């Protein structure tokens, strides 16, 4: 990269046995690049993005990336000081002090500082050095600092801090040999922490100290980047800002439909052809029926949506990595304020568009306990990517592909946008209800750090897509596979005895699954759903996308609809009112066991997930009922 990063500055080490070293922690201010460095050092793929508060819990990995698989590295959430002010900061401080049950006590510390704002970031270094563990100070993003005219004397800084200091760039992986050197001789600098370290807990004296140190080491802050301000002049403009935000959102869905749909269709054809290729190799009879008509059909009906989901994740990745997410929170703060929530809650809510589970974890960055609880409770309303297959299937089956505005805006996009909006409105209304009743609290200040814009790297975007694709495939291979197999079995018992030792599967309506479906049908008939949809709803409590695979399996098992495409079969079997009602039901209902599990973990009781499930179910039922009846009224 540059010459700056390859000469680590060290104070001559006092001899010490290296065998004592087992666990190393990474600590530093938010958004200083700890997780990027963690990924470099361990070779793992921990999520990184360009906003403060991406990492909210400790992550451990072996330092295989620098050839030390005997050492454990712990990545921690970013902190500003050793005084905890939010849940994620508490985790960092407890781990650093070795008070976290289940996490080994650290033997050495690596402090990661953003060298572009060193004066402020040094304030954290003082209390961490005072903990007394062997410490290495890494000045991250030093390539950026130097290219913008910044300067620092690392040798002098090492003398001031009494700890080795090195300049690195975690994104480009330069200067990391300093870490290996440090790990081989961890005793460096433990000899005498400087006497000038400021009194703990006093921010004013810490800042005075940091300013003195940075002056003595010849630190010159880099020139501030005009680029970020120029981009913000447009993206945070009074009129253009919100307008561009809206256009980006519409554009994303247009692309998901216009490019993603043909990709999905092609992928679906490929999967169907694969089944035809395998068919001759399987013995005819129940094995073929189970594997191809049951399992394969169910799984492939969900898998076809993989291209569209990956496209959506690509856009979310670009938004997160570029640094726009924090700006979106700024724009949305006004809306959030009317609900009584903090603008900071918007960041977890936005990431819930991908998946509610990490979003609920991300609420740990919210300082106020009641605000955090309210955010956890409304997060499942946000339209996560698991709803996408259901929406896509129903929209493609029932909504005509009409376009307005010279092809810029399609009717399908409008329906999709309204569903996303419905989820958001549901979340905001619930938040307002909660905040004005049981979770009322005094307002906590909204303090949000806006990171500089950065160009998303292809490497990190690619890694995200691979990870998300992997999660989706794993889900298909476990939950969806077992549900489809169970469904197939239930659809084929009790078998009818034809005499002469030959058995035939029963009529679908007479099978176990048919009886169960007909048993619950009265409850869902007012919503315009038939018994097959009812079975789909029951199975989708596990995960939303299971709905699609269940439909695939059920219609595949029915001789009347077996030859049909799933969309045609649905169209054949449902009214428009029922379809719209089903979409709105999915917008509101909480059908995800992983989300319930994470809510239980974060709130420490089953009470909240139970309340949440029942509330959302009631809301979904009511809304679906209304939509079905209103549609019937208009269409006769």
């Amino acid at each position, binding site marked *: 990269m540059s010459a700056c990063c390859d000469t680590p500055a060290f104070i001559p080490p006092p001899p010490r046995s290296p065998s004592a070293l087992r666990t190393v922690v990474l600590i530093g201010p938010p958004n200083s690049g700890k997780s990027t460095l963690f990924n470099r050092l361990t070779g793992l793929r921990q999520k990184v993005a360009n906003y403060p508060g991406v990492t909210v819990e400790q992550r451990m990995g072996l330092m295989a990336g620098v050839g030390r698989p005997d050492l454990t590295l712990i990545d921690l959430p970013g902190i500003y000081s050793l005084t905890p002010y939010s849940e994620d900061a508490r985790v960092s401080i407890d781990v650093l002090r070795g008070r976290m049950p289940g996490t080994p006590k650290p033997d050495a510390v690596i402090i990661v500082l953003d060298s572009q704002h060193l004066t402020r970031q040094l304030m954290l270094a003082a209390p961490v050095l005072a903990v007394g563990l062997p410490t290495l100070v890494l000045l991250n993003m030093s390539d950026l600092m130097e290219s913008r005219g910044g300067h620092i004397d690392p040798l002098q800084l090492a003398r001031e801090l009494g700890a080795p200091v090195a300049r690195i760039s975690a994104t480009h992986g330069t200067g990391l040999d300093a870490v290996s050197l440090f790990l081989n001789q961890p005793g460096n600098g433990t000899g005498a922490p400087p006497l000038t370290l400021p009194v703990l807990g006093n921010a004013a004296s810490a800042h005075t100290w940091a300013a003195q140190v940075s002056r003595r080491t010849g630190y010159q802050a880099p020139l501030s980047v005009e680029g970020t301000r120029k981009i913000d002049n447009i993206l945070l403009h009074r009129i253009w800002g919100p307008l561009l935000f809206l256009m980006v959102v519409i554009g994303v869905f247009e692309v998901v439909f216009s490019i993603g749909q043909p990709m999905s269709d092609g992928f679906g054809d490929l999967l169907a052809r694969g089944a035809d290729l395998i068919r001759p190799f399987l013995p005819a009879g129940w094995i073929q029926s189970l594997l191809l008509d049951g399992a394969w059909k169910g799984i492939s009906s969900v898998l076809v949506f993989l291209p569209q989901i990956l496209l959506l994740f690509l856009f979310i990745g670009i938004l997160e990595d570029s640094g726009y997410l924090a700006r979106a929170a700024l724009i949305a703060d006004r809306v959030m304020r009317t609900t009584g929530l903090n603008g900071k809650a918007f960041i977890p809510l936005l990431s819930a568009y991908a998946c509610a589970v990490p979003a609920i974890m991300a609420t740990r960055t919210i300082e106020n306990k009641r605000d955090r609880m309210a955010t956890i409770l409304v997060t499942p309303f946000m339209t996560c990517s698991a709803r996408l297959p259901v929406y896509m299937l129903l929209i493609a089956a029932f909504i005509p592909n009409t376009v307005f505005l010279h092809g810029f805006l399609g009717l399908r996009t409008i329906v999709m946008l309204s569903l996303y909006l419905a989820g958001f409105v549901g979340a905001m209304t619930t938040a307002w209800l909660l905040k004005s009743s049981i979770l009322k609290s005094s307002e906590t*200040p*909204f*303090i949000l750090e806006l990171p500089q814009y950065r160009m998303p790297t292809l490497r990190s975007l690619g890694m995200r897509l691979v990870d998300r694709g992997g999660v989706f495939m794993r889900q298909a291979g476990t939950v969806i596979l077992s549900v489809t197999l169970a469904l197939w079995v239930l659809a084929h018992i009790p078998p009818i005895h034809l005499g002469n030792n030959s058995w035939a599967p029963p009529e679908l309506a007479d099978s176990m699954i048919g009886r169960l479906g007909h048993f619950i049908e009265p409850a869902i008939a007012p919503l315009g759903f038939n018994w097959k949809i009812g079975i789909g709803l029951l199975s989708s409590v596990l995960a939303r996308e299971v709905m699609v695979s269940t439909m695939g399996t059920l219609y595949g098992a029915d001789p009347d609809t077996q030859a049909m495409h799933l969309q045609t079969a649905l169209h054949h079997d449902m009214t428009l009112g029922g379809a719209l009602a089903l979409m709105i039901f999915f917008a509101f209902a909480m059908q995800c066991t992983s989300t319930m599990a994470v809510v239980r973990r974060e709130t420490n009781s089953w009470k909240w997930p139970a309340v949440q499930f029942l509330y959302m179910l009631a809301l979904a039922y009511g809304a679906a009922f209304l939509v079905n009846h209103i549609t019937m009224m208009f269409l006769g």
Partner: protein
Amino acid sequence: MNQKRADLGFPAGLKSVQEPDSQRRGLRMLFHQLRRPLICNSDRFGPILNYDLSSRSLRVLPFSSPAGVVRQVSILSQLKVGERAILVALNLPESVQNHLMHMGFVPDAEILVLRRAPAGDPTVYLIDGMEIALRHETAEAISVRPCESVVAQSSDAAKTNPSSVEEDSALQLAEARR
């Protein structure tokens, strides 16, 4: 609101630390308005809080003022976009104060109002090279003084290297403590 205060014998345009610009807080504020004007005159006494408005901590950090400078305390939220000021005190609960100080909101730091959010409320401030957004009511609890007084007082070196302004005054503060 200003009209009412003028009636009570205060010069128009007088700024006090705790007073919000708008009447959003409604009746509660009105109640405080009636009790307010007899003690609090921040222009004369520095950032003195005469009572607690919203269960906020009364702790105000003692910041020594540079000698020979006329003290003109005003409030961060009153600055317009593009204006600069020097931070004086944070009249916030201690935890929030601590958090903000670690984000660069330390006494004598220079702060620039960068922009307002499209909806007009959270405002983005540039402090210590970082962009940080605060809501109106938080900015309201932060008192500042105009920039010029420090620039006029500081040495020539300060003009060539703007960052040393802050460090010099921080040193000054440390010396004053001893």
